[in-house]
């Protein structure tokens, strides 16, 4: 029983970090109908900005975190302007965007390898990682609880932004039909920039938490492949789907590793993906293209 509770907590905290990243995939997909594989790069950018800000501006996580979110958001906008905008203005085949994003992910990773080196870097201890005993039932890290809480806060804020703000309404309209939304007077380029900015910011939050948990290195973005799987399982384009998919994936990983075999964990994760695509290709919460976001 104790073990089960422990593994459930392990899974939920892993899933919450996946969720922050998966939501970014879903957001971009809902507007432009392609999976932005450079998303892992924004996570790495956010992590490094936070690292250097903490180092040079004193250990103030609020300033460093703010700069990191801003920086990653702007890099995402810049990436869209440089790599995707020229393509989407020439063609409406989203496969080209997908390929461009694969290229960008490799470009970003290698820029970091060359500029800062392949070495592992730990963020200064601004986020507590001490063991916390929960009701005598189980032990977890303070960090796990914090990452769960922060993920919930950011996802709730995003939901609020989309449901209540004017730009949120525009995003919903664009997800409905980007072209028509443009014809109705929405500034489509601005809208896409906002979506990328938000996705980049969420990636930075994920990046900071992943850097604390697994340290920072240029290949850290590779972890987003799991978040992408989570987004697909939950239904690409659906934000609640991305969250639920992430929790399912985090729990599936931990329970498989804990109770079956740690070697089967990736097998289970990717089998889940294949099964989802076979049984319900739109994912758990995937709706028809008309009802996305």
């Amino acid at each position, binding site marked *: 029983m104790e073990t089960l509770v422990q593994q459930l907590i392990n899974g939920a905290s892993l899933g919450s970090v996946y969720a922050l990243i998966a939501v970014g995939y879903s957001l971009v997909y809902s507007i432009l109908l392609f999976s932005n594989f450079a998303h892992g790069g924004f996570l790495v950018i956010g992590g490094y900005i936070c690292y250097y800000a903490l180092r040079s501006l004193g250990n103030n996580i609020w300033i460093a975190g703010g700069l990191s979110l801003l920086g990653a958001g702007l890099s995402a906008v810049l990436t869209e302007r440089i790599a995707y905008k020229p393509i989407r203005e020439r063609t409406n085949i989203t496969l080209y965007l997908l390929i461009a994003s694969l290229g960008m992910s490799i470009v970003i990773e290698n820029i970091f390898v060359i500029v800062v080196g392949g070495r592992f870097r730990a963020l200064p201890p601004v986020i507590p990682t001490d063991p916390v005993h929960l009701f005598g039932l189980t*032990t977890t890290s303070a960090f796990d609880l914090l990452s769960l809480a922060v993920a919930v806060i950011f996802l709730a804020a995003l939901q609020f932004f989309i449901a209540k703000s004017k730009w949120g309404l525009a995003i919903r309209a664009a997800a409905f039909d980007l072209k028509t939304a443009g014809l109705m007077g929405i500034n489509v380029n601005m809208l896409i920039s906002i979506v990328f900015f938000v996705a980049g910011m969420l990636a930075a939050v994920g990046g900071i938490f992943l850097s604390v948990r697994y340290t920072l290195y240029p290949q850290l973005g590779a972890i987003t492949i799991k978040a992408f799987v989570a987004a697909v399982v939950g239904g690409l384009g659906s934000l609640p789907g991305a969250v639920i998919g992430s929790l399912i994936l985090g729990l599936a990983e931990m329970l498989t590793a804990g109770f079956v075999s740690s070697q089967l964990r*990736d097998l289970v994760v990717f089998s889940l993906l294949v099964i989802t695509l076979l049984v319900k290709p739109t994912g758990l919460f995937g709706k028809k293209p008309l009802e996305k976001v």
Partner: protein
Amino acid sequence: MKRAIAVAVVMALAFAASSAIAQETIKVGYLAALTGDWAAYGQTELKSAQLAVDEINGKGGVLGKKLELVPYDFRTRAEDAVNAVRRMIEQDKVYAIIGANGSGINIATAPVVNRAGVSQIGTVSTNPFVTVDNDGKVRPYSFRICFTDPYQGKVLAYLAAQEMGKKKAAILYDVGNEYSQGLREFFIKSFTAYGGEIVSDLGFRGAVDVDFRAQLTEIRNSGADVLVLPNMGKEMALTIKQARELGMADLLIIGGDGYADFMWEIAGSAMDGTYWVNHVAPEDPAMQPFFAAYKEKHNDECKEFVNGVLAYDSVYWLADAIERGGKADRKAIRDALENTKGLQLHHAVLTIDPADHNPKDKDAVILECKDGKARFYKKVRPE
């Protein structure tokens, strides 16, 4: 006019050819992971090897010629390593190859170098099959400067059972890594022979997995009093950090030569109280000039000091072999490497066993992590 140009071109070509001959060097291939997960190790190796080459060239080179490193990045992938080795041999015409920093890679490149007759020296490649084939027959052109995994596994078991008095061991190993698999196997064999018991034996996928809390939860429940980590630095550091975060404060953690100083960066004070079997002690007085020179040249600490020292001494070993062989010739270099006896390198005295191309009777160093640093604990040669 045309003729004048032709004459000029011919003269220029002749000049270029003659100057090329005058500057002829002894080319040495260097195979290292310069990008990817092992980049920290590989980059240190290359920098250290270059330092040794510069020192040797500064003293007049070998046989009156200068050494020249030809580095290739294998990106932790065996197929890239095989292609790199082919290019070194066929295009660059190297006389010998140093590297790689990983056993699986040396095993993958062994058929190529042995067919071509070019010696390859593994730096930290500790798997037995680096230098012998599946039938136990020595691979004529494969060498190593480090001790082997069976030996290291035995040292680990000796450390846990005899030195520390622990009898219940848990192992967490990388299922996709030959080094990890080998070390685990040889540890189990020796540990049970010392009267110990394996209470938990779990795996993970290296380079993919970064979260080990599921396995650690199981290990915590198994009643193990020692956790053995036969892995690479990143995974071991993450494991140690997560173990301490899960409240496993008293568990003794030991591991092999995958230890690297960058693990402190990842795991911080969680490293305190861990022990590591190693080839080199960072406090070794004989290595201090090297560490100082490295710092001056590269403006950085030699954090991955095992790779640094072994890469540095591999170059000195090879230079000595070329000198003893008497000519820049692939076969002569091989014969001289095989007949290395009592060679005083910086970190150790090297004698090669011709039967398996392994160093004979090298002491193993045990490092103890204490107060933010890996310190020399003792030297062992288990019985």
